[in-house]
């Protein structure tokens, strides 16, 4: 169930250029089901900034009632969020949306996880969960430059991990799709989160594979009521449109018109 809670900041640190790792504690963690769900965060009590910020859940520790979020402090809201200190309370609404379907991969199979920039975080919980059920995971993570890379060690601990940087300053050079074309990894299902052009390129790279993509759109409510975040669907789907916040943010490949 969706809940609103003032969650407590446990840890908060910078892990790459403008990228922060935020660990929150609260009952809301009990409600977190699927990797790929997100929370909607109010960054201050003021009305300026006004709206909540959608941030993916990066990892869930139900035992300690803790969850980890990774975010880029870019605009005004996330910059304010980055000032929170351990012990501070953060107004969180969540968990929201439907995450990546774990049952699309079976034990013994291989899943390819492809993340771009700030789309990487939700893949981390996904990788852990897939591992737990005996699915091998290959991780391909793309970043702008060496200073932007994060969570390499964490992913490596879970499986084969390739880092790609656009400027070649770390790992291999280019886009994730360049590496995929070159390495041609064998896998059964792909899961991806990142900028829309990347998602599109991936769909095109694997025309015949089962896959799941996580989308971003500007949001109002985050719960499906305001129609801010709709995306157009392909002809393969009966509905005209879907809401990223409540129908997604993860959709099966071929559902969203790209």
């Amino acid at each position: 169930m969706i809940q609103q809670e003032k969650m407590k900041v446990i840890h908060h640190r910078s892990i790459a250029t403008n990228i922060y790792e935020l660990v929150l504690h609260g009952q809301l963690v009990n409600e977190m089901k699927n990797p790929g769900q997100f929370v909607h965060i109010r960054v201050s009590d003021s009305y300026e900034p006004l709206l909540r910020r959608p941030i993916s859940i990066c990892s869930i520790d139900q035992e300690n009632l803790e969850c980890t979020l990774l975010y880029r402090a870019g605009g005004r809201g996330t910059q304010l969020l980055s000032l929170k200190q351990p012990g501070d309370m953060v107004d969180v609404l969540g968990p929201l949306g439907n995450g990546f379907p774990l049952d699309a991969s079976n034990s013994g199979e291989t899943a390819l996880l492809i993340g771009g920039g700030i789309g990487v975080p939700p893949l981390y919980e996904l990788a852990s969960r897939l591992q737990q059920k005996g699915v091998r995971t290959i991780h391909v993570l793309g970043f702008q430059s060496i200073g932007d890379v994060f969570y390499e060690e964490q992913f490596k601990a879970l499986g084969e991990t390739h880092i790609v940087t656009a400027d070649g300053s770390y790992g291999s050079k280019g886009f994730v799709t360049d590496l995929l074309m070159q390495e041609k990894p064998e896998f059964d299902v792909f899961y991806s989160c990142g900028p829309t052009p990347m998602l599109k390129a991936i769909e095109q790279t694997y025309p015949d594979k089962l896959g799941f993509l996580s989308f971003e759109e500007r949001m109002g409510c985050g719960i499906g009521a305001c129609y801010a975040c709709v995306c157009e669907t392909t002809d393969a789907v009966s509905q005209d449109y879907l809401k990223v916040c409540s129908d997604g943010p993860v959709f099966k490949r071929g559902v969203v018109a790209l």
Partner: protein
Amino acid sequence: MNRLQIELPGLSLKNPIIPASGCFGFGQEFANLYDLSTLGAIMIKATTLETRRGNPTPRVAETSSGMLNAIGLQNPGLEHVMEHELPWLEQFDVPIIANVAGTEMTDYVAVAERISTANNVKALELNISCPNVKCGGIQFGTDAKIAGELTAAVKAVSEVPVYVKLSPNVTNIVEIAKEVEASGADGITMINTLVGMRLNPSTGKPIIANGTGGLSGPAVKPVAIRMVYEVSKEISIPIIGMGGVTNAEDVIDFLSAGASAVGVGTANFVDPFVCPKIIEELPQKLDEIGYSKLTDLIGRSHR
């Protein structure tokens, strides 16, 4: 005695808190969060004759203490609303105010005629003020004569009282309110959004795909209060006030200015539990200012 009770044409409200149209869908999402029967009423999303797909995304942009939206009246159309949304809402003990929109006058009339027959629709809200659609919408709300004609046409077919939702994007809102009253409206709802724009400083282009959007939230409250104040002095039908309501104090301000109930829009995005929270706060606020019931506050700014 229920200190929060408000009686309006067609509407017997347990309290004056009404989620505003377009900010609450058809209630489903919020029903997962709390019991909708606690609300005074619900203004459902604008309904048009046919399904509408709305504007391209991005459809929202944040501004200082406010937001812009250009949803473009996306909705599943009259038939779907009659067959699915409204019957589903019947499980709650809450009157529905159906927000009616269209492109031509005949659209409004057709939607009004049909939707006003639904069991739980206790009033209509004529959306003559949506700034986000190319045809219809706001033109009806910026010309007093056309607004009056539309009101009369809808009144002629509606089974329930008709409220007309005014646009703040006008030189003289009092004139439009008077014309609408003279044409038979049972009430006024106000304000819809102010037309605004936000640019992306890097590209210089509008953030909202539609270019302009409607400004709502706390930023517009002073404009809304001023307009409710001015209009309520000049008309005798009741007003449902809105624009930036986020807490019980805002409700008191709108009632003091002359409204009889309030719509709560954008605040639902900031805090989805805001409506029940305000309802809970109201009695205490009444005590603080020394009033026994809400109705005593209505229009006290004029007295």
